[in-house]
C-alpha cells in the first residue's frame, strides 16, 4: 500500500458581495492506492469544492488560499498552469456530476476522446490513439460503435460511462467521481458503480466518490469521510461508520437512513445546514448537536484519532486516547 494522494490543510474561500465564505477550512486527507473513499455531506458542505480544489479548477470568486495536494509525490498546488494541464487526466481525473451536460453535443464521442489523448500525447499515431479510445469504451462496457456516436444518441447511464471512459484514458492515479449516479435510476446506478469498481481494479488507482447517498457508500467504498461546513467531521472505515459512528452529525446521518426494519420511521436531522457566510463559533455543528457542551461554542475541535482508529473532530472524545 503506497500513499497516492495526500491533502494537507487545504483551504478555499469564496469572495462574495455579502462577505467571505470559507468553503474549505483546513482539510487533511490521505489515500492509498487501490483505496475507495466516500466523501459525504449535505449540499453546501464543501464536497464539490473539495473536488474542484484538488483539480485546481476553482473559479473566481473562489480562491485556493493554501494547502497542498500531493499526488504521487508531486504537489499539484506548486505546478505551473501548463504542468497542471498535463497532470489533469494523467495524474488526477474528475468525473463531473451531470454527465449529460458535460459532453459536447456537436462532437462525436470519439473526437472528444481523441482530443483528450492528443492534449497529453502528440506523438502517437491516429490509429493507435483511436484504438486506445475503443479499448477504453470497451472497458466500461460500451460497444466500439459508440466511438462514432453523438451524446444525444446515448442514454444517461451510457453518457456517464463515456465520462468514465474519458477519465481513465490516461490511467490516472486518482479518480474523483462527483455524484456520478445522482440522476440515474437504481439499475443503471448499479451498472455505473460496477463499472467504476472494475476500472479501478484494472488500473489500480484510488477513487474518491462524492455523494450523499449513504446506502451507495455502504456498498461501494472502503473509507468514509463526513464533511460538515467545510471541515471533516469524521473519517473512518465503512464498517466503523455504519456500526459505530462517533461524531454526532455522523450518528444523525446514519440514523436518518431508511431500512427494511423500521418501516415508516423517519428521522430527519433537525435544523438547517449553516450558511458559510455566518458560520457558528467553535464547532460549526453545535447549534444542531444533541450533545452540545459549553466548550463546543468556543473552541473548534481538531480531527484526532480515537480508540478504534476513527478520526473524529468532536469534543465528546477526550484528547488523550
Amino acid at each position, binding site marked *: 500500500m503506497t500513499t497516492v494522494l495526500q491533502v494537507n490543510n487545504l483551504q478555499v474561500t469564496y469572495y462574495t458581495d455579502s462577505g467571505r465564505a470559507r468553503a474549505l477550512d483546513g482539510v487533511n486527507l490521505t489515500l492509498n492506492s487501490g483505496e475507495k473513499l466516500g466523501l459525504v455531506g449535505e*449540499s453546501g458542505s464543501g464536497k464539490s469544492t473539495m473536488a474542484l480544489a484538488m483539480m485546481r479548477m476553482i473559479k473566481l470568486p473562489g480562491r485556493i488560499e493554501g494547502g497542498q495536494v500531493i499526488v504521487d509525490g508531486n504537489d499539484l498546488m506548486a505546478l505551473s498552469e501548463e504542468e497542471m494541464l498535463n497532470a489533469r487526466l494523467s495524474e488526477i481525473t474528475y468525473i463531473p456530476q451531470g454527465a449529460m451536460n458535460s459532453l459536447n453535443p456537436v462532437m462525436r464521442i470519439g473526437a472528444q476522446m481523441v482530443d483528450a489523448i492528443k492534449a497529453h500525447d502528440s506523438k502517437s499515431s491516429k490509429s493507435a490513439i483511436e484504438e486506445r479510445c475503443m479499448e477504453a469504451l470497451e472497458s466500461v462496457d460500451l460497444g466500439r460503435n459508440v466511438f462514432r456516436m453523438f451524446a444525444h444518441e446515448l442514454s*444517461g447511464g451510457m453518457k456517464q460511462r463515456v465520462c468514465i471512459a474519458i477519465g481513465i484514458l490516461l490511467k490516472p492515479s486518482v479518480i474523483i467521481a462527483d455524484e456520478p449516479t445522482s440522476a440515474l435510476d437504481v439499475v*443503471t446506478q448499479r451498472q455505473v458503480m460496477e463499472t467504476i469498481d472494475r476500472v479501478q481494479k484494472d488500473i489500480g488507482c484510488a477513487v474518491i466518490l462524492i455523494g*450523499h447517498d449513504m*446506502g451507495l457508500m455502504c456498498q461501494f467504498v472502503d473509507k468514509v469521510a463526513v464533511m460538515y461546513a467545510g471541515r471533516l467531521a469524521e473519517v473512518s472505515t465503512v464498517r466503523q461508520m455504519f456500526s459505530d459512528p462517533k461524531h454526532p452529525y455522523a450518528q*444523525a446521518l446514519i440514523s436518518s437512513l*431508511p431500512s427494511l426494519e423500521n*418501516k415508516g420511521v*423517519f428521522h430527519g436531522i433537525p435544523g438547517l445546514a449553516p450558511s458559510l457566510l455566518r458560520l457558528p463559533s467553535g464547532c460549526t455543528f453545535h447549534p444542531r448537536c444533541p450533545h452540545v457542551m459549553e466548550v463546543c461554542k468556543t473552541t473548534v475541535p481538531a480531527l484526532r484519532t480515537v480508540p478504534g482508529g476513527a478520526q473524529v473532530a468532536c469534543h465528546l472524545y477526550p484528547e488523550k486516547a
Partner: protein
Amino acid sequence: MAALLELNNVTKTYSRGLVSRSSTTALSNVSLNLDESEPTILTVAGESGSGKTTLAMLLLGFINPTSGQIRYKGQDINQLRGEDRLTFRREVQAVFQDPFAVFNPFYTVDHLLSVPIERFKMAKSKNEAREKMEEALTAVGLRPEDTLGRFPHQLSGGQRQRINVARALLLRPRLLIADEPVSMVDASLRANILETLRTLQRNYGVSIIYITHDLTTAFHISKSIIVLYRGGVMEAGDVDTVIKNPQHPYTRLLIDSIPWPDLNRRWGETEIKARESELTSKGTGCKFLGRCPFAMEICQTPPPLFQLSAHQAASCFLHAKSPEIEPERLSELLPA
C-alpha cells in the same frame, strides 16, 4: 364505494415520423381505481422510460390517452368544461421533481401562494388569504415569518419542495400526484418531505400517487405499489409483500439494485443480464424478455397478470400456476 379516480385500460402511444411512422408505447393498458372514502398512498415505481411520468401527465390531464378513459369522480377528465374543470384543477394537485425549476425567480413566496388563492377564490379577504398561507406553511413544517416575502433563490431545495407541497395543500386537494418529489433533495431532508406527505394523507385525507424509482422511500411511505416496466404493469400489490418478497424478475432486479445501507447485505447478487443499449422492442411478448434471466419459450406471448395472493400479482409466466386476473381488477389487490 365511490371511485375518486378510475383508469380504464389506458394506453398512451407517442408516434413520430411523418413518412415512416414509428411509435413508442409509453403506457399500455393500465387500469386503476382509487377509492374516495379511503385516502391512501399508492406508489408507481419503475426506472426511467417505464412510463411513470406519462402516467402523471395523463392523470393531470396534460395529455390525452391514446385509448381508454380516465375518470375523476365519474367524469372523463378530458371532457370536463367550465366549472367542473376548475374543480378538477383544484382538487388534483401536483408536486414535481425539480424544486429549482418550477418557481418563477421574480416572484416572492407570497405571490406564488396567493395566485392559487385568488384564482380559485379560496379567501374572502387579504387577511384570510394570509392566514391560509401561514396555515399551509406551518403544516409543511416551515416558519411563515421566515418564508413569506422571500424569493425562491433565498431558499434551500428542501424548503422549496415543501413550499410546493404547501401550495398544493392550500387548495385542499383530494388527490396529490407527486412525481419524484425527493429525488433532488438531500438525504437528510428527504425524511422531512416524506413525513409531510404522510401527514397530508393522514390528517387532511388526501390520496397520494407517489411516482418514484426509489423503492426505499416507496416502502416507507406507501401502502401499495405498482411496478411498471416500459409501460406495462409487471407486479402490483401490498408494498410490504412486493418489496420483501418480489416475484417478478424485474422487481427482483430493481430491489436487488438498491444500495441498502447495511454491511451485511451484498449489493447486486443477481446479474444484470443485458445492457440498456441492446434493448429494442421486439415482437409482442413480455416486455422484460430481453433482460430476463428466466426467459422461456412461452414468454414470446404477452403474459397475463397472475394473482399470487390476496395482495400480490405479477405479470410473468413463472407464476403460470396461479390463477389469472383481469387487468381491470388490479385495484382489488391493492390494500387501501
